[in-house]
């Protein structure tokens, strides 16, 4: 199988409201950043482009097509899109390269969530007959999951507050983060509940922004001469769309994806886990089989800023960055999609 590497990555700051900046304007600086990391002129210099976004955010079918304006698609390019987090656009691009249809690919994800009420917007992606008509929001779904974990003593509110405290502290060194600071567990526990048993701090913020990445065969990466990290494993698994038909106290699909991606074939120096709610980081750390030897979400993770449809790709990008910076030799990136961790992707990255 062809060996594939991440060669460039960039993410915008996570901001609560990008104001009049439109999606194309959110994407373009990130594309320019990855081009400049490799000395590329434009999307014409890669073989394939794939993006991830959610038309529900803009409230119009095929809204993602407007994002192509950021690429400049003349003369014609080979381009695709997933109505998913761009981590799955990465997955599609990897398949394209593995099949020999491309040697390099540009991937980007974007989300401008601020114009709508995101937890309610996402409720309309649930089962259209049983759940969407109830307007069951994402925060409430996560709160139902948290209660199950708390009732079964699998997690405590103190454990959850500890996750938030570490996220906020780690984010102090992350200039792209939206929420950062020094908070004690006691301070966090003293806050009122938001959707009990969740407090506001247990929930990721709503953020606007974009991320971009370039991957290529190792041969192409060497030809470009940029530092790279090899993607030595990647897998994605999905569970039933009805949250009640799943064990919400575990993430079976994450366990399966981690096993198939080969997470435990070597040490895991760093893990970037896409956990939009504090209890989910604990649940996912267990499902990934990680222990104290792994540094988890050193930049604060998505509790410090969550770019819908880009944060999953960014998890891979953050592991890439730590590897090329020499801070880690081998790392794991996780992305999630759907209510209560329905769909999960796990990737393993290793140094050149």
């Amino acid at each position, binding site marked *: 199988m062809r060996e594939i590497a991440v060669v460039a990555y960039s993410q915008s700051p996570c901001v609560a409201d990008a104001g*009049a900046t439109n999606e194309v304007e959110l994407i373009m600086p990130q594309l320019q950043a990855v081009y400049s990391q490799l000395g590329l002129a434009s999307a014409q210099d890669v073989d394939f482009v794939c993006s991830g976004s959610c038309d529900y955010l803009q*409230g119009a079918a095929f809204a993602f097509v407007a994002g192509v304006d950021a690429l400049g698609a003349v003369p014609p390019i080979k381009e695709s899109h997933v109505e998913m987090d761009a981590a799955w656009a990465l997955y599609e691009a990897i398949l394209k390269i593995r099949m020999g249809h491309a040697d390099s690919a540009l991937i980007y994800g974007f989300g401008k969530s601020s114009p709508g*009420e995101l*937890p*309610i917007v996402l*409720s309309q992606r649930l089962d259209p*007959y*049983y*759940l969407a*008509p*109830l*307007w*069951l*929001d994402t925060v*409430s*779904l996560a*709160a*139902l*999951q*948290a*209660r*199950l974990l708390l*009732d079964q003593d699998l997690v405590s509110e103190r454990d959850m507050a500890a996750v938030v405290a570490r996220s906020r502290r780690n984010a102090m060194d992350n200039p792209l983060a939206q929420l950062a600071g020094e908070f004690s567990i006691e301070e966090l526990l003293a806050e009122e*509940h*938001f*959707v*009990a*048993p*969740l407090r506001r701090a247990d929930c990721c913020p709503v953020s606007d922004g974009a991320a971009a990445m370039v991957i290529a065969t190792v041969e192409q990466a060497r030809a470009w001469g940029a530092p790279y990290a090899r993607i030595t494993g990647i897998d994605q698994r999905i569970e*039933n769309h*009805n*949250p*009640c*038909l799943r064990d919400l106290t575990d993430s079976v699909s994450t366990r399966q994806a981690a096993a198939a991606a080969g997470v435990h074939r070597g040490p895991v120096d760093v893990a970037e886990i896409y956990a939009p709610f504090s209890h989910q980081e604990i649940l996912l750390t267990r499902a990934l089989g990680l222990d104290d030897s792994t540094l988890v979400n050193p930049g604060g993770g998505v509790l410090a800023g969550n770019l819908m449809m880009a944060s999953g790709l960014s998890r891979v990008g953050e592991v890439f960055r730590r590897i090329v910076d020499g801070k880690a030799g081998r790392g794991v990136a996780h992305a999630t999609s759907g209510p209560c961790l329905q769909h999960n992707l796990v990737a393993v990255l290793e140094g050149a």
Partner: protein
Amino acid sequence: MVAAELLSQHFELGFTYTRSTGPVVGKFLTGLREGRVYGVRGSDGRVLVPPAEYDPLTGAALGEFVEVGQQGRLLSWCWVSEPREAHHLQQPFAWAMVQLDGADVAMIHYLEAPSAEAIRSGARVGISWAAEREGFITDIRCFTLLEGAAP
């Protein structure tokens, strides 16, 4: 700098057509209209409510319907102290995962309760039907706590 005036346009997001809900979802929704709750038996013998069209384990088409009770047990809940505009209950309420008597899995719906303190996991709850039923999941107005019932 003067803030620019934003142009706005009314836009209703929705399907411009109707479709049949099919033999499984349709059976359930028609049952609700009649004040009955139907589940479907899965390949492992479990009764799934609301019914799944395809078996969650094998993917086989399902069609053995089982009528279940209108009361059940609260498996999980969360308290919405500030209902959102889209929510159907505008007083503080709970979301509930309820396993109806005779069902083997939970379903999610609204739970009307006076306060979070009145609710505990494992509590007995029952269906409160909508005044007018038309074959939608909202024919169940919400669940309510059953008084004096031991968990």
